[in-house]
């Protein structure tokens, strides 16, 4: 896959079919990858595809001028489609290099599983349904599902539907909603007071770095409501009340565009379980309006469309 990607990327740049390539290259920390955005065909050899390509690169698309070749896993491709639906990206201006995705490894799950810091691990490799973790020269084997991100366990579209170049054999979806939805189910078992208390506590750690928003492909506003000063919707100081308000409104704003890519939760520096918000909204939108973000580029965006009769039950 990696070889094919490098060839295709090089060819696209050489033939002038794209101005930019966005992909992944090895990161500076062990196992990690980092986005590579380049115009130089010689950089194509730095591109990688491995079980650690976490970023949703669609986030960069609206800001880049010119034609772009972009590496996309299933969830990323849905974000791209969603941006096309929102008229933020022109389909003809992107060349989607599709990665059939077997799931991305969550290093913090690996750390918890073997009780070691990632710097102490010799190697983490994937072989089919197994992950092999090498520590102190010893190999340990686990089912790969124990170390994949929760949102990967829920994945409905491992192989992009919308693409220009397919880099490998398509993979069928195999969502395990029971495992991936555990946190949300647990929350639903609490009383409303306990739930509100839970979120108040969680969001009291928020330092309002806005990483969750900045990394989100659906949050592309030139000026977010939190930065407006007339009126000032939230105070700049990160009190839990305004932190929670921000996160609630953000979730409502991205409803129907959030693809459950898991990026917001991953980047949160204080580990707020944001996916327990975004995924619930995702399911709610599906249940109420039978809408899933980024599945069909011809479909009208959720919030610009309506049915004559729907969601009437609570209207007086």
């Amino acid at each position, binding site marked *: 896959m990696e070889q094919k990607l490098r060839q295709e990327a090089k060819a696209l740049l050489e033939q002038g079919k794209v101005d930019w390539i966005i992909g992944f290259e090895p990161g500076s920390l062990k196992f990690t990858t980092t986005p590579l955005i380049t115009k130089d065909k010689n950089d194509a050899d730095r591109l990688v595809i491995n079980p650690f390509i976490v970023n949703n690169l669609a986030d960069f698309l609206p800001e880049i001028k010119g034609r772009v070749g972009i590496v996309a896993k299933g969830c990323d491709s849905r974000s791209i489609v969603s941006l096309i639906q929102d008229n933020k990206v022109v389909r003809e201006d992107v060349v989607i290099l599709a990665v059939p995705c077997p799931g991305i490894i969550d290093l913090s799950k690996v750390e918890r599983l073997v009780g070691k810091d990632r710097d102490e691990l010799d190697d983490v490799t994937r072989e089919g349904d197994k992950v092999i973790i090498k520590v102190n020269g010893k190999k340990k084997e686990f089912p790969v599902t124990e170390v994949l991100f929760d949102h990967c366990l829920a994945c409905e579209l491992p192989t992009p539907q919308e693409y220009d170049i397919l880099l490998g054999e398509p993979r069928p979806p195999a969502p395990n909603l029971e495992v991936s939805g555990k946190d949300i189910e647990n929350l639903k078992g609490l009383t409303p007071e306990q739930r*509100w*208390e839970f979120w108040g506590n969680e969001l*009291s750690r928020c330092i309002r770095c806005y990483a969750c928003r900045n990394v989100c492909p659906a949050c592309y506003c030139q000026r977010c409501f939190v930065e407006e000063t007339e009126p000032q919707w939230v105070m700049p100081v990160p009190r839990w009340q305004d932190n929670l308000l921000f996160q609630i409104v953000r979730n409502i704003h991205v409803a129907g565009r959030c693809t459950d890519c898991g990026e917001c939760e991953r980047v949160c520096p204080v580990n707020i379980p944001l996916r327990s918000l975004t995924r619930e909204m995702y399911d709610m939108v599906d249940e109420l309006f039978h809408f899933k973000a980024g599945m069909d580029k011809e479909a009208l965006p959720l919030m610009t469309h*309506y049915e*004559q009769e729907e969601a009437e039950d609570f209207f*007086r």
Partner: protein
Amino acid sequence: MKQKTEWKPKLVGFLCKWCSYAGADLAGISRKKYPANLRIIKVPCSGRVDPLFILKALRLGFDGVLVSGCHPGECHYQTGNYRARRRIAITKRFLEYLGVEPQRIQASWVSASEGGKFTKVVDDVTKELKEAGPNQLFSERRGDGTKTKARSKGTTRARQS
């Protein structure tokens, strides 16, 4: 002797200027009585109501929020109320999931000729809000507003990659 007055919920109403605001006006002109705890904000269309307004009202301590517009099919701008309906539906459901009392988010369709219906809506909503009690959602009553205290209480998870 002054009697201690009964607690009355504070309600903010976002009323569309074409239907519900006119309906409220009609209720006034016809001298219909409805609870005086409603603060009305006139909006051009129910579709103008960003869910942010609803959250901000709760954040400011209002006990309930009412969004009211023209009946489906009668929107002055054809589709504004349908869009409002989607937004309010997810806002209400999402807030319930978070633990907000469902009574606090209210919505109605009231036309310009329905002064009577408007009175009834405000009456009923007020009753429901009395059940729900004062809005303490964003108050500091639990003492969990201080960051240090909550940090030790909140769930700590392993570092994310």
